[in-house]
């Protein structure tokens, strides 16, 4: 596969390491009350859609950016690629 890196352009997916659903960005607050259920959901449950899937890829053999790739799991067509850091910020994650 070819992943169109937002900074570097098309790169062979072989340079990347796959992690999984982009929802892994949305880590619950470990100090919140009753956070156990949230962590179970976060760590273990997946939509696993047949179709469009937002997922995390790490450019390990490249510039070491984590990317959020929107890819169809049936056709493997990739429709958008973003820097995960920007996505995380847009989801309100900070420090």
């Amino acid at each position, binding site marked *: 596969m070819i992943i169109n890196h937002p*900074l*570097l352009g098309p790169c*062979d997916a*072989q*340079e990347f390491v796959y992690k999984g659903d982009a929802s892994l960005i949305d880590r619950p607050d470990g100090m919140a009350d009753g956070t156990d259920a949230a962590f179970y959901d976060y760590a273990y449950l997946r939509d696993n859609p047949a179709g469009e899937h937002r997922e995390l890829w790490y450019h*390990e*053999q*490249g*510039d*070491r*950016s984590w990317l959020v790739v929107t890819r169809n799991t049936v056709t493997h067509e990739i429709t958008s690629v973003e*820097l995960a850091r920007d996505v995380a910020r847009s989801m309100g994650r900070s420090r």
Partner: protein
Amino acid sequence: MHDLAPMTPLGASAPRRDTIGPVTITEAPDWALTSVAARLGQEATSQAALEKVMGNPAPGIAGHTSGAIFSAFWIGPHIWMVEAPYATHPDLAAQIKATCADTASVTDQTGAWVRFDLTGDDLPRLMERLCNLDMGKMQAGTARRTVIEHLGCYVIRHADSITIYGPRSSAKSLHHALVTVAKSVF
């Protein structure tokens, strides 16, 4: 000056040089390397500081810029790798840290890499068997990291030569691959 004798990545006192067909592969241990990563919110200032040291612009994305003494290439968002002759700049990191101060995180990378300089004709024919970079499209002044023989390497395209940086501990494996491929092509 201390009295420890350096060893080249290929394990000798002198660098290795191989000529196969039109191509010469030269081990180049005489470079100091330092990574410069901008601190959060300091991207502009750290780049300015770096350019002050280098005396020429810092490279843009996937770029390599070279000056009289210093040159540098892009290795990630707001991260650069600076090169300078080791003989004159054994303390490159300290020198750059002095200028960048708290605007950047500076890390000595000199020992982490083995550098091979490739010169001669038909270099693309050699490279096309080593990595998936499109050498036909790759302009001089481009630096890309990619996989060569299962190793993460930087490939830098100069006007009439190519530089490959690979992990120092795998210098022997990388060199073996370069020579094997050269013999297979030429």
